């Protein structure tokens, strides 16, 4: 698929924002600067960016506990995300949600979700709302290989298929559900084949190739927008970091996957791959790449300063926003 230079640069910037954000919050978390825990998407940038690049502003997404990448790719601001991770009142959720629950309705981000498989019915309902309101907005639903074993995956694919809803189900198969290899607990090798059970298209996608993800998603989005129903895309990818940042402190190194495996996947880094294809292919200059890296670092620095200097919520805010 031929992608114009502007979009390529936009995709690259988005991947850089994710990579730098995630790397930084890993360090901040390990330095005990962030409460709670964080699930990182380093290595999975291409699936988030490829999918969201195929969406328009009024399209919606649902995300997961490992959701920073999706939120950034859909346009989330780093300063509000960072402030939320710090539990500050200036954060996206006024400090009520944290890492796993960031929402920005103005950007069509219906939210990360702490329940594995929790986003699938919500995305299906979001697509239903488009039909009810007579709009041609599409909803992209991110979830992992683990969620494909939840009942909500199967119920949602069936419901979306029966009602031909404009939803694209995007499984980011990173090979592990928490600390368990997916092949140990999953009846099929490729999750995409499960689409057949619901009479919808299912496709395996190289999840580390942002252009391929973008192309396949664009086709699925066009299909959804035309009223032809849902598609299941399985993006094969890998998370470089653990299930949760800092997990080695309680499970030790190499407890469920090998360094060799991790290093092998690092050679398939989606960002390096993009640079090799486009910067070395002369479509984009190295200087442009370096400029984006620099600008992103500055944006991130500003976000951290904003978060650090923002006020914590007042205890009196604890009862706000339970009901409208």
């Amino acid at each position, binding site marked *: 698929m031929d992608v114009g230079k502007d979009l390529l640069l936009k995709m690259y910037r988005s991947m850089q924002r994710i990579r730098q954000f995630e790397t930084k919050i890993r360090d901040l978390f390990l330095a005990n600067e962030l409460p709670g825990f964080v699930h990182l998407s380093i290595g999975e940038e291409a699936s988030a960016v490829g999918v969201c690049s195929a969406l328009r502003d009024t399209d*919606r997404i649902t995300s997961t506990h490992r959701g920073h990448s999706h939120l950034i790719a859909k346009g989330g601001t780093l300063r509000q995300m960072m402030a939320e991770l710090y539990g500050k009142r200036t954060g996206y959720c006024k400090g009520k949600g944290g890492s796993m629950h960031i929402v920005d*309705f103005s950007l069509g981000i219906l939210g990360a979700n702490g329940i594995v498989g929790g986003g699938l019915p*919500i995305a299906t309902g979001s697509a239903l*709302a488009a039909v009810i309101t007579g709009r041609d907005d599409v909803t992209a639903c991110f979830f992992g290989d683990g969620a494909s074993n939840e009942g909500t995956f199967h119920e949602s694919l069936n*419901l979306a298929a029966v009602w031909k809803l404009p939803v694209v189900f995007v499984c980011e198969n990173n090979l592990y559900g928490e600390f368990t290899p997916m092949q140990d607990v999953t009846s099929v090798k490729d999750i995409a084949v499960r689409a057949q059970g619901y009479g919808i298209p299912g496709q395996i996608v190289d999840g580390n190739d942002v252009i391929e993800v973008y192309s396949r998603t664009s086709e699925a989005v066009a299909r959804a927008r035309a009223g032809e129903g849902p598609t299941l895309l399985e993006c094969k990818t890998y998370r470089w970091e653990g299930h949760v940042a800092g997990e080695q402190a309680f499970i030790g190194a190499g407890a469920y996957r090998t360094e060799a495996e991790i290093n092998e996947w690092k050679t398939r880094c989606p960002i390096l791959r993009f640079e090799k294809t486009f910067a070395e292919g002369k479509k984009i200059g190295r200087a442009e790449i370096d400029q984006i890296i620099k600008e992103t670092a500055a944006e991130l620095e500003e976000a951290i300063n904003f978060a650090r200097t923002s006020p914590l919520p007042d205890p009196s805010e604890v009862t706000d926003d339970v009901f409208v």
Partner: protein
Amino acid sequence: MALTNFTQAINQAIAEEMERDPLTFLMGEDVVLGPFGATRGLLQKFGPKRVRNTPISEAGFVGAAVGAAMAGTRPICEVEFASFFYCAFDQVCNQAAKLRYMSGGQARMPITFRALYGAMGGAAAQHSETVYAQFLSVPGLKLVVPSGPADMKGLLKTAIRDDNPVIVFEHGALGRLKEEIPDGDYLVPLGKASIKRPGKNVTIIAIGAMVPKALKAAEKLAADGIDAEVLDPRTLIPLDEEAILTSVGKTNRVVIADEGHLRGGAAADISALIAEKGFDLLDGPIRRVTALDVPIPFSPPLEKAAIPDEAKIIATVRELMGG
């Protein structure tokens, strides 16, 4: 005023609200046919886009109602029997109830869930349970338990207009109960109790289908010279604490009649409220008349033994009144 039964009241409320707001739609198990009558004929009025049969797939479609609400519509989502909520507990308790709060107030969740509850004659434990207590300690939900047709219509219409998730529990044995319903756009606010019978000697707080039973009990008690006030809270969240304490302050004695179970139930919750805030008002112990702590059994004599009735209310009131 028109004489209307409980089921017709539901149908009218839904039809009027769907007429009023094009973003309102109905989804759920068998809503097209409406086997119990509540949704019958709505497909013909509003068409297949807005009246949708779902698969028997509670987690999927209850969750879809959550997503549809977040994305700007106003779903009315029927879960045929309230015990089926267990199949969709995550979608109700983790998603619908929490997402507004967790998003810092960004999400609007205008969903009305409707479900049949209660013992209705030989349906056994998985179709007879009174499950509202299970939602009492899930902040973010409103719980509505109408006791008759007029309240049913007025409360359901208000619930549909509410921008929060509301569960309306419809007792399966009340379907044919008839009552005059005021004409026009009849709304009953959430959080306002109703005194169904004024009295001086004892307050019977009755929930849902216990209200008609409590009213019959009160008539018999009146023959013995005991003047019982029957208070229907109508909604458990929000709860009209003021009305409850005012009534107890007047009668100084209270019996709470609830078809839910004894332990951890709505009656326990209301008892705690009265004990904490109304202890000095009481001339005797707070008494509860509830279902036994057993799954609701199938066989008629066993079912009757398990659930509270008029006779149990009368016996409890007499005991409390010292005679």
